[in-house]
């Protein structure tokens, strides 16, 4: 039997011992709380899956079991394993297996060189695959969140004829400011808006950069022939703006969207009348 086959058989015969020792050693030198916080049954199955995954490519080192790898990384991301933890898990696993092979005589001083080479060809590609899979998954989550954020941000809503509202929610960075400007101008033209209400109720901080972007947006709106009104200015934001020394006197501003709407109706020569 080839040496790696012997190793594979020994691992599957001793998988319980390996898993047990792995958990013990990981607990001994780990700052991660996974092993302490998770219920014993989950630790048990996850550890078992981990050791099984670790041996999946021992017979054929080129083939890391894709499906199993995929499922497993999904799971450990969900459990919040960090890259550091994964790396340590792999290191601990190989030292546990190494010791075991020594104990049962599969490895000895005579065949050490060959053993080390099998180990390298076995563990390294696995480590690469796991880390690659892990980071790909994170990158994907990250980019999906960016898209979700973009979808959330800045749509211009036509509320009445000639009046549109853009509710701004969350932090405004340079990228979002650009998006706000584009959507605003495009929407004003498309919706034939005469008055646009920018609602900043949901913007946590109005610093000079945010104010600057708002002023620029309002100027641009003016250029395409509409008026821009700033609404939803919370009292603490009003005080901060004044202290910062930002000049918003060219602006029509109101504290709430409701007041802004009344004003906008006035500006376009209309009122809301209650039915008799």
């Amino acid at each position, binding site marked *: 039997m080839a040496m790696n086959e012997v190793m594979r058989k020994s691992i599957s015969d001793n998988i319980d011992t390996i898993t047990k020792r792995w958990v013990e050693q990981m607990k001994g030198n780990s700052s991660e709380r996974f092993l302490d916080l998770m219920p014993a049954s989950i630790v048990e199955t996850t550890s078992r899956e981990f050791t099984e995954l670790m041996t999946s490519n021992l017979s054929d080192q080129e083939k890391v079991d894709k499906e199993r790898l995929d499922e497993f990384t999904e799971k450990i991301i969900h459990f919040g394993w960090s890259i550091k933890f994964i790396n340590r898990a792999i290191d601990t696993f190989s030292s546990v297996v190494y010791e075991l092979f020594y104990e049962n005589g599969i490895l000895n001083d005579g065949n050490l060189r060959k053993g080390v080479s099998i180990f390298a060809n076995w563990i390294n590609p696995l480590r690469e695959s796991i880390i690659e899979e892990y980071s790909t998954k994170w990158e994907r989550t990250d980019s999906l969140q960016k898209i979700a954020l973009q979808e959330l941000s800045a749509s211009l809503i036509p509320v009445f004829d000639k009046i549109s509202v853009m509710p701004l929610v969350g932090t405004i960075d340079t990228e979002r400011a650009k998006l706000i400007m584009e959507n605003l101008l495009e929407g004003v033209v498309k919706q034939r808006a005469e008055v646009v209400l920018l609602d900043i109720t949901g913007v946590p901080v109005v610093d*000079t950069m945010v104010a600057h972007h708002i002023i620029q947006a309002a100027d641009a709106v003016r250029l395409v022939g509409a008026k821009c009104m700033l609404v939803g200015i919370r009292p603490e934001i009003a005080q901060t703006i004044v202290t910062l020394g930002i000049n918003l006197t060219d602006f029509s501003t109101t504290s709430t969207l409701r007041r802004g709407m009344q004003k906008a109706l006035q500006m376009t020569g209309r009122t809301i009348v209650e039915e008799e």
Partner: protein
Amino acid sequence: MDHRSSIEINTEWDIVAARQLGRNEAKSTGFGTVDQARITTAISELARNIYLYAGKGKIEIEPITVGQRTGLLIIASDEGPGIADLQKVMEDGYTTSGGLGAGMPGVKRLMDDFRIETEVGVGTTITATKWLH
């Protein structure tokens, strides 16, 4: 002993992290909503200046007690180009980045104590404190 929290500023999103930390510290120090907004905005300005002009640096936030007074200390430091004309930077409306030019004088007004140490080619450290009244 009071603790000092620190945030490295390398990207635009670190500015958000810094002011989030500032808001939490301000809240736990006992500041009201208006002062929380002032402190958060000041941190936002300081962090943005680091990001815009120095590229990277850090914001440190520490609750302090001096005698009977309690307050929040903010230290913004970088190893950037430094400020050549300090007087101009503190003038309202002076800007080199096309912004409003209200940042630095604004921070000074938002906070109670304000001090700049800067040297061209070495870096800038801004120390600002808000006292709990």
